[in-house]
């Protein structure tokens, strides 16, 4: 059932800085001047600084928490523990299982136990050290296999299994001429956004709180905070502060509840800013995955069955593990036609750092698994890796593992051909003498080309766009048109989070296109307007863009009504044209300024995509997804096979975006997604030993620098969808999905090694 029928993709007429144009970011000037206020830049007279007392244990019972010594320090204004949480001391996106402040047990190293407020940050830091917590250590459960087996201690009521998704379709496997099996592992990646977790909470006169914070979803924060603070939601008002990157890491609460508690207790504005180490501990990470695959195919390499067993380590709390496991399961076979599937995907609790949302959301991990298998299958059959993918690629009308037919464009084969046909980068000079900066090891000058082998690898991927499984997903937007001075100005108000992706730009572009008003103001996102949903799942341009467009349509209707009255003509036959409303019938026209002289026009619209359904709990079958997006990658690497050093030389990506609302912003998403894929492939991993993070800094957690990033080639397809605004498809996640798989394949091609784990380390290539 369709709640609101989105208009079919029309031919969009070109409007200056409208849809399809390279419109500039409205926040760009402030950002290049250093004037833009990120959440860590906020300050207030009389503010106090918050700091967090964190557990040094991975699993322990809290015996006592003594705060008197800390509270007695000059300049300390509050020290709060679990007993000071006025409402429900639990939060969480899917299950409210995570304490605001640990009350009984701590389940991971770094879990917040108390918060302090002081007049300056140094005093707050010292006060943290004076909070005396006595712990009784408990056995730690840090191996997800043991968590699954049930041999470890149960970390939550109901045991350690967060979700087991079973997907079964087709007849049992039989008659496969070729069978390939493999075990694969993906390490724990971090979002590593640059802007640290931070916020400013202001106590309000009505007993509520006003919170300025960086987040991906204001309303879901508001709902969780209201329950924790025992306040009605309308007394917890949130405004989006400048967000320094998100990538899924800001879906969960971090500083928000703590700062609100401190503001309400002290009656003063409370500011919290994490340092980098605390940021690494204080947000969820990408789920590490262990995967077992078996692919059966006929002698030509056509898939007959896939059996997959996937285990995700969700860490100490559920966060989004349920949905991540859903995605990993649903996309475990990739964008391939498979008659018979047997998929088991499980997420478990452990005492490791909590894992949740990160760009790609479960689909990244399995892509490395299924694409590794496709390469293995190609080798076993004796055909080209691209050819094996082409023979099995889904197309429109194909059935996914969940039994859902693909209704929209599914240009997997074309995307693959496009990356394959792109020119390859020049080879290294055969005689040596290459610029050492272009060799593995780079300026470390470890090689002059001896022992360096080049490899080329491919990957394709699929990802759901928007929220799945029957979730009531919607976006709200308010558009107001009025006259300021002599100029017509439109304003857009949504609660949608701009996290760097360019949403503020596209909102204005849509208004310009729909109303032909050049001057558009995008108001700050806050909870004074209806819910926009989350800036994740590659959905925000689709959902909030759709809502803005619908609000514009309503505004235009109101303007036409007014014009009809003013011109004494029927509405039909009237149209908007460059600041006037024109009658095609009579040739009469009226200036919008005259229509708006008495009163602005103001309309709010709610946009919904088509409804989906939950998967069948026994078979995992069902129309759970709104839409699918596809990307293909080709990677070229040079590997020093003696030292195990890898240089990614080039990554090419072809992606179908439906309609590029802002082409340079789409390119920016593709470049950035590829960079995170390069990171996951060869360098980025949170190292966890016995539940503790060993590398919580930018010195030790390596993200690609300008020296690590390869050159990129992009090819953007625009195959319009019938069911989305302007035909667009979400673009945020696909550029990352198959990049690691393609790079791993290229390393395999260069070295002849199996490469069963990413990130690929020098050790793994030399041992």
């Amino acid at each position, binding site marked *: 059932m369709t709640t609101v029928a989105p208009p079919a993709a029309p031919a969009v007429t070109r409007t200056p800085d409208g849809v399809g144009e390279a419109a500039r970011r409205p926040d760009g000037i402030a950002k290049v001047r250093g*004037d833009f206020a990120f959440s860590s830049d906020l300050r207030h007279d009389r503010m106090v600084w918050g700091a967090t007392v964190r557990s040094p244990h991975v699993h322990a019972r809290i015996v006592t928490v003594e705060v008197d010594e800390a509270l007695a320090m000059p300049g300390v204004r509050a020290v709060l523990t679990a007993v000071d949480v006025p409402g429900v001391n639990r939060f969480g996106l899917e299950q409210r299982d995570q304490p605001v402040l640990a009350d009984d047990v701590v389940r991971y190293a770094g879990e917040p136990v108390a918060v302090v407020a002081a007049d300056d940050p140094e005093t707050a830091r010292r006060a943290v050290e004076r909070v005396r917590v006595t712990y009784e250590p408990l056995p730690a459960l840090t191996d997800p296999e043991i968590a699954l087996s049930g041999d470890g201690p149960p970390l939550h009521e109901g045991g350690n299994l967060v979700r087991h998704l079973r997907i079964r379709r087709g007849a049992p496997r039989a008659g496969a001429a070729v069978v390939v099996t493999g075990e694969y592992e993906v390490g724990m990646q971090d979002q590593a956004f640059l802007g640290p977790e931070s916020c400013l909470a202001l106590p309000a006169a009505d007993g509520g709180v006003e919170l300025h914070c960086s987040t991906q979803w204001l309303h879901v924060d508001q709902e969780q905070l209201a329950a924790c603070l025992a306040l009605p939601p309308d007394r917890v008002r949130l405004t989006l502060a400048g967000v320094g990157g998100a990538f899924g890491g800001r879906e969960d609460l971090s500083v928000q509840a703590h700062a609100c508690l401190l503001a309400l207790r002290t009656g003063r504005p409370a500011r919290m800013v994490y340092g980098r180490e605390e940021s690494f501990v204080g947000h969820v990470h990408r789920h590490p995955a262990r995967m077992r695959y078996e692919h059966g195919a006929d002698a030509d390499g056509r898939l007959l069955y896939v059996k997959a067993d996937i285990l995700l380590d969700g860490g100490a709390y559920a966060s989004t593990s349920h949905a991540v496991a859903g995605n990993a399961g649903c996309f475990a076979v990739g964008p391939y036609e498979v008659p018979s599937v047997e998929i088991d995907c499980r997420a478990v609790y452990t005492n490791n750092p909590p894992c949740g949302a990160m760009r790609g959301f479960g689909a990244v991990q399995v892509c490395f698994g299924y694409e590794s298998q496709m390469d293995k299958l190609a080798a076993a059959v004796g055909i080209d890796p691209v050819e094996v993918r082409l023979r099995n690629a889904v197309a429109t009308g194909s059935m996914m593992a969940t039994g859902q037919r693909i209704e929209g464009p599914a240009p997997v084969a074309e995307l693959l051909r496009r990356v394959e046909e792109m020119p390859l980068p020049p080879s290294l000079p055969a005689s040596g003498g290459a610029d050492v900066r272009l060799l593995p090891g780079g300026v470390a000058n470890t090689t002059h080309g001896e022992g360096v082998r080049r490899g080329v690898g491919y990957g394709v991927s699929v990802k759901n766009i928007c929220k799945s499984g029957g979730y009531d997903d919607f976006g709200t937007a308010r558009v107001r048109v009025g006259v300021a001075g002599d100029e017509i100005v439109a304003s857009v108000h949504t609660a949608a989070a701009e996290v760097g992706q360019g949403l503020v730009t596209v909102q204005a572009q849509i208004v310009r296109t729909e109303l032909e008003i050049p001057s558009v103001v995008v108001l700050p996102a806050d909870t004074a307007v209806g819910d926009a949903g989350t800036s994740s799942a590659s959905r925000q341009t689709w959902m909030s863009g759709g809502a803005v467009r619908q609000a514009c349509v309503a505004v235009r209707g109101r303007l036409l009504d007014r014009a009809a009255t003013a011109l004494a003509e029927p509405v039909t036959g009237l149209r908007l044209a460059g600041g006037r409303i024109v009658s095609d019938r009579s040739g009469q026209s009226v200036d919008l300024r005259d229509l708006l002289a008495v009163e602005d026009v103001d309309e709010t619209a709610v946009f919904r995509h088509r409804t989906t359904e939950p998967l069948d709990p026994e078979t995992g079958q069902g129309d759970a997804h709104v839409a699918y997006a596809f990307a293909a990658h080709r990677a070229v690497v040079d590997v020093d096979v003696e030292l195990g050093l890898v240089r990614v030389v080039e990554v090419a990506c072809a992606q179908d975006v439906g309609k590029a609302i802002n082409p340079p912003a789409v390119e920016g998403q593709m470049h950035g997604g590829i960079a995170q894929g390069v990171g996951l492939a060869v360098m980025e991993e949170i190292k966890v030993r016995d539940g503790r993070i060993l590398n919580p800094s930018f010195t030790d957690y390596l993200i690609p620098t300008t020296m690590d990033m390869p050159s990129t080639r992009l090819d953007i397809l625009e195959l319009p969808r019938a069911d989305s605004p302007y035909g667009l498809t979400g673009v945020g996640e696909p550029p990352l999905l198959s990049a690691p798989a393609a790079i791993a394949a290229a390393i395999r091609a260069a070295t002849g090694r199996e490469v069963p784990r990413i990130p690929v380390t020098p050790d793994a290539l030399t041992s």
Partner: protein
Amino acid sequence: MRVGLEVDGKARTADDVEVGESLLFLLRERLGLPGSKNACEQGECGSCTVYLDDEAVCACLVAAGQADGRRVVTVAGLSGDDGLHPVQQAFLDAGAVQCGFCTPGLVVAVHDLLRRTPDPGDAEIREALAGNLCRCTGYEKIFDAVRAAAR
């Protein structure tokens, strides 16, 4: 201790500066000038790059006391009242700004690169900016901005 310095052409003083405080903290928290950003505070990401006298440095690695009597130029000091510096304009034109947290530090680093090397090659650009992390852009459009500003 009292620290007196010039920031973006204006004389500034801060009292009660602690020995261990960084120039970044002094700028952001004592002087209320948040143009330089606080991403790692370990000299790894370059988000806080400023000029100290004429040298581009990570403000997080400079003790506040070391800046006493010296001249600091932040990203805010690069643009005059008459508009943006060509490097800033190039970042806008190239679409090199996404979340923008790395941008102030990168603008200063690129300014410094072009001051030293007016027409850098691709390898020189990559090498010069290796100390500035960006998590959003994949750097490609930042390279475009450098090439555009060099023209």
